[in-house]
C-alpha cells in the first residue's frame, strides 16, 4: 500500500492511493493516515509491521494486538531473531577464546556488532563501546568505577565536598546508583527540579552545576513524561565547570539519530531491547581516555592483562569492563537491529513518531477527565505519553485496555519522584515506535472511552 502526503496539508489529509484504505469503516481515515509518510520519502508502516511476527498476534477473544508499550520494550523484527538463531545453529562458541573456526566466527560476530553499534551512534572508535547486560548495568558500572577511581581527569578521588547532579525525572536506574555512590564516597547528591509542564527547571542551573559537581547524569528523553531534555544547555555548563556528563539514552537511541560526538557528553548508555534488539545486552559508550582511566567493575576472565596470585593488571577498554564469556547471541541480535534501523533510517522513524505523537496528544487532550502528565505539545517531546483519568486507577485503565487488546504500561514507570511531583500514585503510559499506526491510537482512545463507561 502506498500513501502520499501533499506538502501543504501534512498528515491530516493523507490521500490513499492503495485500495486497502478505501474501506468504508469508521477507521478508514485513521488507516489512511496510518501510512502517512514524510514528504519525499516512502515510510510504509504496513511493510515494516510485516517484519515483526508478533504484531500479527491476536489476544483475548481473537482481538488484534495493539502494542503501545515500546518504551518498556520494543518488539523484534524477523532479521534480529534470525541472526540469533543463525549464531546458535552455525557459529556458537566462546568469543575471544580458542583458535578453532567457530571461536573465530563467534569473535567476529561479537566484535562486528560492536563496530555496528559504534557507527550507529557515530562513536569515533569501536573501543569506546562496552557491552553490558543492560543500561542499568552500564550506569552502575560508571557509578561504581567513578567511586573507585584514584583520579578523574585532572581531579582527585571523589569524596566529601564533591557533588553529583541528576534530575527529578530520572528513571530509578539513573538515580539509585548515584545515591549509592554518594553514600559510599560522602559526596552530595543534588538534582535539577521538574516543572508541572514536565520540563527541567534550568533557571538555577548555574547554582546547581558548579565546580563542586564532578558528574551530571541525566535522561535524554524521559520514559514517563516523554520530555526531550536540552542536552546542549547542560553540557555547556558542565564543560564550564569541568564536570563529567552521563546521558541516559535508553529512550532516545531507539527513536532519534544520535551522534555522541555532536552531543558532547562523556558517557552515554542505552539498552538493546528497546531498539528492536534482544534483552540481555546493553551499551556503555564512553570517551576512550576516560574509560582508560576507570578501574574495573566486574572482575574475572578476559578483563585481565596479567594475573599472579598476588595481584592483576587489567586489559584496555572495552575488554576491561567485559568480564566472562559475553552475550554473543545477543550481540548478534543487536547488530541485526542496528542494521534494520539503519535500513529504515532514524530520521524517518523520528518523523513517523513525531506525527503519531501529535495525533495522539490532540486526541487525548479532547478526552474529558483525562490529564496528560508531561508536555502537552510535540515540541521537544517523544512518543511516550503518560496520562491519568479522574476516578479510575491507572491499573484499572491498563487492565480494561488489555481486555480490548491494547497493551500499555501502568505504574510509576520506575520514576516514583515524578509521580509524587504530579500527585498521582501511578500513570497509564502509551508509547509508540516505528511500527505504530494511527489506527492503534484510535483503538487506545476507544479503549479509554470504554474504561470510562465501565467505571461510570
Amino acid at each position, binding site marked *: 500500500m502506498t500513501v502520499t502526503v501533499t506538502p501543504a496539508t501534512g498528515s491530516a489529509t493523507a490521500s490513499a492511493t492503495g485500495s486497502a484504505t478505501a474501506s468504508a469503516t469508521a477507521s478508514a481515515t485513521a488507516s489512511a493516515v496510518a501510512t502517512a509518510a514524510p514528504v519525499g520519502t516512502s515510510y510504509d508502516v504496513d511493510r515494516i509491521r510485516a517484519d515483526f511476527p508478533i504484531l500479527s498476534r491476536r489476544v*483475548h*477473544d481473537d482481538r488484534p494486538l495493539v502494542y503501545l508499550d515500546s518504551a518498556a520494550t520494543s518488539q523484534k523484527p524477523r532479521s534480529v531473531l534470525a541472526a540469533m538463531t543463525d549464531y546458535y545453529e552455525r557459529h556458537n562458541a566462546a568469543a575471544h577464546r580458542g583458535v578453532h573456526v567457530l571461536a573465530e566466527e563467534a569473535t567476529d560476530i561479537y566484535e562486528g556488532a560492536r563496530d555496528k553499534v559504534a557507527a550507529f551512534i557515530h562513536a569515533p572508535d569501536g573501543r569506546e563501546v562496552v557491552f553490558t547486560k543492560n543500561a542499568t548495568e552500564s550506569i552502575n558500572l560508571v557509578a561504581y568505577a567513578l567511586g573507585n577511581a584514584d583520579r578523574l581527569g585532572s581531579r582527585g578521588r571523589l569524596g566529601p565536598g564533591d557533588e553529583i547532579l541528576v534530575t527529578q525525572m530520572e528513571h530509578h536506574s539513573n538515580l539509585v546508583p548515584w545515591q549509592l555512590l554518594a553514600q559510599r564516597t560522602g559526596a552530595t547528591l543534588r538534582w535539577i527540579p521538574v516543572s508541572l509542564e514536565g520540563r527541567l527547571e534550568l533557571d538555577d542551573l548555574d547554582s546547581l552545576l558548579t565546580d563542586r559537581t564532578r558528574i551530571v547524569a541525566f535522561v535524554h528523553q524521559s520514559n514517563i513524561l516523554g520530555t526531550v531534555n536540552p542536552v546542549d544547555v547542560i553540557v555547556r555548563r558542565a564543560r564550564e565547570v569541568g564536570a563529567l556528563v552521563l546521558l541516559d539514552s535508553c529512550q532516545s537511541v531507539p527513536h532519534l539519530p544520535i551522534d555522541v560526538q555532536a552531543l558532547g557528553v562523556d558517557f552515554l548508555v542505552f539498552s538493546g531491547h528497546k531498539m528492536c534488539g534482544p534483552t540481555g545486552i546493553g551499551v556503555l559508550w564512553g570517551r576512550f581516555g576516560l574509560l582508560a582511566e576507570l578501574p574495573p567493575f566486574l572482575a574475572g576472565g578476559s578483563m585481565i592483562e596479567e594475573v599472579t596470585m598476588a595481584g592483576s593488571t587489567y586489559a584496555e577498554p572495552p575488554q576491561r569492563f567485559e568480564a566472562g564469556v559475553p552475550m554473543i547471541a545477543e550481540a548478534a541480535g543487536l547488530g541485526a537491529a542496528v542494521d534494520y534501523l539503519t535500513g529504515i533510517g532514524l530520521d524517518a522513524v523520528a518523523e513517523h513518531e513525531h506525527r503519531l505523537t501529535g495525533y495522539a496528544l490532540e486526541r487525548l487532550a479532547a478526552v474529558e477527565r483525562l490529564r496528560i502528565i508531561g508536555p502537552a505539545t510535540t515540541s521537544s517531546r517523544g512518543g511516550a505519553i503518560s496520562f491519568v483519568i479522574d476516578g*479510575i*486507577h*491507572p*491499573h*484499572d485503565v491498563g*487492565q*480494561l485496555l488489555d*481486555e480490548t487488546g491494547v497493551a500499555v504500561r*501502568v*505504574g*510509576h514507570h520506575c520514576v*516514583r519522584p515524578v*509521580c509524587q511531583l504530579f500527585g498521582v*500514585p*501511578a500513570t497509564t503510559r502509551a508509547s509508540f515506535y516505528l511500527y505504530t499506526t494511527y489506527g492503534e491510537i484510535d483503538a487506545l482512545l476507544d479503549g479509554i472511552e*470504554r474504561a470510562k463507561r*465501565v*467505571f*461510570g
Partner: protein
Amino acid sequence: MQTDSMYQEIILDHYRHPHHQGLREPYDAEVHHVNPTCGDELTLRVRLDGTGADARVADVSYAGEGCSISQASTSVMTDLVTGRTLAEALQVADAFGALMQSRGTLEPDENVLEDAIAFAGVSRYPARVKCALLGWMAWKDAATRAVDVHAGPPPDGPAPVAPVADPTTLTAPTPEEIVP
C-alpha cells in the same frame, strides 16, 4: 466487552461504595502496607474483643488509595472478618488466599467467601493478585499484632513496644508465600 472481565459488578459496587471505610478508634493495632509496584497504599486498624481462642474481630477500619481491585477486596474482606472469631476469620483468609493463587482453576465456595467469589477471575492475572491480597495481608498482620497486644507483656519481660508499621518490610507477599 469480554464476558469473563475481571470487573464483575460486585467488585465495581464495593469500589464505588466501600464498606467499613475510614479509620476508627479504639483499635488494638494499626499497620501500613504498600504495593511497591503499583503505588497502592493501605492503613488498616483492627480491634479485637476477648483473648485467646475466644478473641473476636470487633472492628476493621481502613484508609488508603489504590486500584479498584485492592479497594474492593479490602471492602469485601471487612464484611467477611468483622464479627467472626479470629480462628474463623483466618480460615476465610486462607480460603481467599487459595483462590487467589489458583490461576483460575479453583471453584470458589460462595458459602465461605460470599462476595469475595467475584475475585476468582483476578486469580488468572498474576500481576493483579497482589492487589486483591493487599487488604487481606494487612488485616492478617494487624490481627496478629492485636493478639500480641491483648496477650500483654510476658510475666518478667519488658512491656510490649507499640507496633510500628514499616512500609518497607510489610509489603504483600508473593503468591508463593501465601500457601494456605
